[in-house]
């Protein structure tokens, strides 16, 4: 069983907000924003390692990003993945989800045969959830998103998908791509010795020349969507605060809501 897990290094958005509130300048302050392994990807790595523990095989991590994205891969290796590849080249910079999915698919073709690709449902910086399905399309394999349970039986698997109205249980052949949500597992916390071991495993870095790609489909050139402008949304709130006794507070709340067309 060869499981490839696609991971991303992201800024810790919780930290961004803290910095922003303190500075109160209306802009994001760059200093002191730590980078982390995307939380959704931790579930994907954990699930891949559990699948290997049960069925044997190998877990390969794949990421694309600047050199410091190695930290995210080290985290994944310390959780038990066997090897890691980082796609790192200025030519990949500025990729949107379409170009990213294409570039990852080229890397996966180079990695060779696989049984399963796992992704986190989305990254907490972009929140798009688009790279997984785009990757599955590029590789012409089935996909299931919002997955919160995986049971593999031979060349088939049963997966449970978490949707608005409940759950869907699906049967899906291998190879396939699954995007997982929180709740699928409880990711392990690596020990210090795991970290040392992860450092020994090492990370392979592939640049543009290592991949068979159509250069018009990668990086900025291969990205149909452009970010035209970015601004900080107004925080409109900071309303009234009351600390009346419970009965009075409940009455005031009812009046407050009635005045705003709720409860009426």
């Amino acid at each position, binding site marked *: 069983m060869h499981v490839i897990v696609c991971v991303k290094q992201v800024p810790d958005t919780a930290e*961004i907000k803290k910095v922003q509130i303190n500075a109160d300048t209306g802009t994001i302050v760059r200093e002191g924003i730590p980078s982390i392994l995307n939380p959704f990807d931790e579930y994907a790595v954990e699930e891949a390692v559990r699948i290997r523990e049960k069925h044997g095989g190998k877990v390969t991590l794949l990421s694309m990003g600047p050199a410091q994205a190695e930290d995210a891969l080290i985290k994944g290796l310390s959780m038990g993945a066997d090897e890691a590849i980082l796609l790192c080249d200025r030519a990949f910079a500025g990729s949107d989800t379409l170009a990213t999915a294409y570039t990852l698919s080229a890397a996966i073709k180079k990695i060779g045969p696989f049984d399963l690709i796992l992704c986190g449902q989305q990254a907490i910086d972009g929140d798009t959830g688009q790279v997984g*399905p785009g990757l599955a399309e590029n590789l012409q394999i089935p996909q299931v998103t919002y997955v919160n349970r995986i049971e593999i039986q031979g060349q088939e698997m049963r997966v449970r998908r978490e949707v608005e109205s409940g759950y869907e249980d699906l049967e899906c052949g291998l190879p396939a791509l699954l995007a997982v949500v929180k709740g699928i597992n409880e990711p392990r916390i690596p020990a210090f010795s795991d970290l040392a071991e992860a450092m020994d495993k090492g990370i392979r870095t592939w640049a543009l020349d290592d991949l068979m790609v159509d250069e018009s489909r990668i990086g900025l050139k291969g990205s149909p969507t452009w970010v035209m402008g970015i601004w900080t949304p107004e925080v409109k709130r900071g309303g009234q605060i009351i600390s009346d006794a419970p009965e009075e507070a409940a009455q005031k709340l009812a009046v407050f809501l009635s005045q705003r067309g709720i409860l009426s």
Partner: protein
Amino acid sequence: MGIRILEDQCTGCGNCLPSCPFGCLELVENKAVIREGCTLCGACQEVCPCEAISIEREAASATSGIEKYRGVLVFAEQHRGRLKDCALELLGAGQKLAGTLHQELAAALLGSEVEALCPILFAHGADKVYLLEEEELEQYRTEPYADALSGVITQYKPSVVLFGATTTGRDLAPRIAARLRTGLTADCTGLEIEDQTGLLLQIRPAFGGNIMATIKCASHRPQMATVRPKVMKKPVPDLSRRGEMIRIDGRANSKSLRTRILQIIEAADEMVNLEEAEIVVSGGRGLEKAENFHLLEELASVLGGAVGASRAAVDAGWKPHPFQVGQTGKTVCPKLYIACGISGAIQHLVGMQTSDIVVAINKDPEAPILKVADLGIVGDLFQVVPAFTRVVRKLKGGETPRK
């Protein structure tokens, strides 16, 4: 990279440094330098007083025959023969876009025996409905839906295609965008047409809502977006409105069915449609134990709302993950969000801060949730919540409704 600092013009003032949302700028020997991670967003260019930052966007390999793409197409998502609210919201948004462009609004309706829904789509603004009825399309699965809908897009060439940002839309749209090799923007909260160019401006939150971005797709078609449910307004239906129905046969290719649905488990009512509920009553660590959620369930029930939970409550095992509101859970924007015993960590706020009205009940006057609440009640939720439930029950129990 298409961004350059014009060193002759850069005075090293440093104005650009804090403007970069990605922290990619630094001063080296009194000149701005761009490091890795730049997305060419242009924030630095806007603040530079010396016009020392130049951005050139290289022309991507464009869609050919771009001028042939016209009109707006909405994916009319249905579940068990009922249209999702977001499909009607998209028609409302799509009608405005199509009106500005002086082009037509179409809907793609996929399913099995769903023809009866066509008049509803016309009443809500669709000029045309592409109807694809097949057994394979009865329940949503990626491959038959992607095959069928990308076929419609290839044949009819809409300029804009909109999907609801639901578990279906967010599964289907990226698959189709990759197949058609076009741009897709996720989770939009605003859509506009750019004056001069007629291009779709797609506005969306990023970085967990810390920043907003405007995105466009200039040289590829169609311009695709998923749109967050409940942000756009449903149009008032005009039942006299008629449109053209175009039936399309034989799109779903049965050889492409590599996934099979074994069973569908409809969850308990209280959990259903947290994202679609008009009122959400959420609980956090302050509830102290799982059993106490019944207080919120009672309140939600008299208000006709749904129950949500913070990450702390989910991680404690008091509620399963589908109830979680926030970063690794759901994003909700109801008319009313009542946060009970939730401190308001940023991971929670990003999932609910676009709600119309936020009420917070918390015993800690320093809780961050109170800073984003329209009305904050500092008090004991175990007393305030039941008291409020009684008040609502009384109000709804036959008395003349108060205005």
